[in-house]
């Protein structure tokens, strides 16, 4: 382990308490919704925010008491924040200059990093002459030019438009993969970024880690409602029983048990929104699906090519679910908020996993 951080800080009512560790060359994704404490965590690692109870150890070197400019960290934010009074090249040369390189050396280093991110052609432009995607590339080059031991990425793709984000994601993938000795912490709310870039992921909610593990596992088999929501999956908690999961209300949700799931232990049933069908209440449900429950439509909103329908509870486990339907189906069924519906989930689309209690998540 080369990065070991314990961040404990308070701001008003909000308390942040996170332990984080990572090996050299690895990328840790920090997932969470707005206000979960992701950016505060990054600022604490960077030294931009400080608390007495924060310890950041990199290879045994304690950074917690150092000011930001002595920590050898690189920070890339959602906005590129290129210095508007400097050219692109001088922006990238800023770090090496601050580290004591001569003007010529710094410009040479800047040239190399601009080439590495494919931005050398903009070297002599002013930041206001760049598009969002170009500016973010340059900002990445600027952060890397100081050769940071700890690279902090704060939603680096969130402000880019749909055309620029994939290219930047691919660039980050190349750059992060080629790094042998750097530790990278990536803050994001987009599971796609985490899956594309990170080895491990931790899910932050209300300033605490509620789930952590290999990125793929956290996002495909979430154990907590937070992680499920981030991954865009439905999650129903209960107790593992033969053939599925028993909800606290006593309903049985049929599904496939994951390996190693002990009966009568806390478990979660996870299924994708596309596996959920919705019928007007009272109508006969075709076939003989085993998982049906009653709910009320809470919201209907477009989600890419499909319409995402959210439910709220009307007894049973079908509250707070999301279902992806075709626009035609939504129109046919006249699904408006407030409409009572019957929700059906195919048993074969439901995976039942052991639930991770908070303490189990911490020690994972």
């Amino acid at each position, binding site marked *: 382990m080369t990065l070991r951080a314990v961040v404990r800080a308070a701001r008003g009512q909000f308390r942040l308490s996170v332990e984080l560790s990572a090996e050299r060359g690895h990328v840790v994704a920090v997932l969470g919704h707005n206000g979960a404490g992701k950016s505060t965590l990054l600022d604490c690692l*960077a*030294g*931009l925010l400080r608390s007495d109870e924060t310890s950041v150890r990199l290879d045994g070197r304690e950074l917690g008491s150092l*000011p*930001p*400019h*002595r*920590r*050898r*960290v*690189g*920070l890339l*934010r959602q*906005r590129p*924040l290129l*210095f*508007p*009074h400097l050219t692109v090249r001088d922006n990238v040369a*800023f*770090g090496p200059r*601050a*580290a004591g390189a001569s003007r010529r050396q710094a410009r040479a280093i800047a040239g190399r990093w601009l080439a590495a991110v494919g931005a050398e052609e903009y070297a002599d432009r002013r930041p206001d002459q760049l598009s969002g995607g170009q500016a973010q590339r340059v900002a990445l080059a*600027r*952060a890397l030019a*100081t050769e940071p031991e700890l690279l*902090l990425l704060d939603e680096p793709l969130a402000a880019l438009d749909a055309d620029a984000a994939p290219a930047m994601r691919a660039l980050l993938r190349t750059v992060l993969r080629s790094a042998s000795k750097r530790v990278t912490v990536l803050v994001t709310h987009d599971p796609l970024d985490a899956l594309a870039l990170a080895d491990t992921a931790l899910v932050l909610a209300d300033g605490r880690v509620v789930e952590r593990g290999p990125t793929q596992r956290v996002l495909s088999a979430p154990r907590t409602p937070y992680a499920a929501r981030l991954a865009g999956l439905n999650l129903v908690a209960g107790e593992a029983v033969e053939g599925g999961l028993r909800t606290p209300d006593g309903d049985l949700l049929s599904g496939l048990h994951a390996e190693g799931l002990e009966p009568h232990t806390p478990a979660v049933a996870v299924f994708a929104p596309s596996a959920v069908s919705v019928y007007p209440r009272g109508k006969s449900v075709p076939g003989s699906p085993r998982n049906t429950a009653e709910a009320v439509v809470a919201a209907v909103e477009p989600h890419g090519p499909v319409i995402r329908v959210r439910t709220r509870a009307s007894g049973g486990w079908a509250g707070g679910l999301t279902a992806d339907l075709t626009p035609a189906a939504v129109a046919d069924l006249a699904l408006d908020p407030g409409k009572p519906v019957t929700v059906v989930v195919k048993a074969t689309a439901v995976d039942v996993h052991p639930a991770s209690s908070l303490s189990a998540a911490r020690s994972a």
Partner: protein
Amino acid sequence: MTRDSTLRSGLRSPRLLWIPAAAGLALIVLPVAGLLFRVDFARLPELLTSQASLDALELSLVTAGLSTLLCVLLGVPLAVVLARVRRGGRVLRAVVVLPLVMPPVVGGLALLYLLGRNGFAGYLLDVVAGVRVPFTTAAVVLAQTFVAMPFLVISLDGAIRAGGDEYERVAATLGAGPWVVFTRVTLPLLLPPLASGVVLSFARALGEFGATITFAGSLQAVTRTLPLEVYAQAEADVESAVALSLLLIVVAIAVIVAAGPRMTARVTEGARP
């Protein structure tokens, strides 16, 4: 009939506002115009090149220049520190704008009781270094700095706070210590508001009257700046006073013209993106 496809705003201000707006504009323009009518252009060169006028002009430009420099040297650090204090910023800001809301005469009196022969700092200076400040050119510069500095501090403080500190934070993560951040990031970004602050301070220093006459007196070529000369001549030779007033107006217009683009730039760029 000509047709123009250029886009223009479809909004207009209410007609009712035009009347007080015109009255407001007239209140500024008419007195100046009235002064222009009173100018005896035939005697103008002679009046303006009198020894007293030349002394006053030179003294005004030198002292206003020096006090503007002093405003920058003291005001920029004050504004930067003020914008970043964690506590007590509101109280400090109120203190800084005090010379702005205080009658200049009172400011001059206050300076006199600090640095005059009976003031505690003035007494110390006199005894220890043999320096007497009041009624010297240095007193003029101090009085002008006293009244002009708030203009500079306020325009900078506003710009710094509106801009936030994101650039400074990024610079710190790039390895720049506080001094490098200040000189290579904060200061360059502050140039547009600094320029407008400098212009405002210079103009304020140039027009300073009350604090100067109280603290520095009115000695030709030593402390009698242009506004003081205008006041002195208004009693003796009205023609001369009017000519000097014209000179002050010309200088003021020159300042506005020189600062014109900068002023507009500050409004649009002063708040950093």
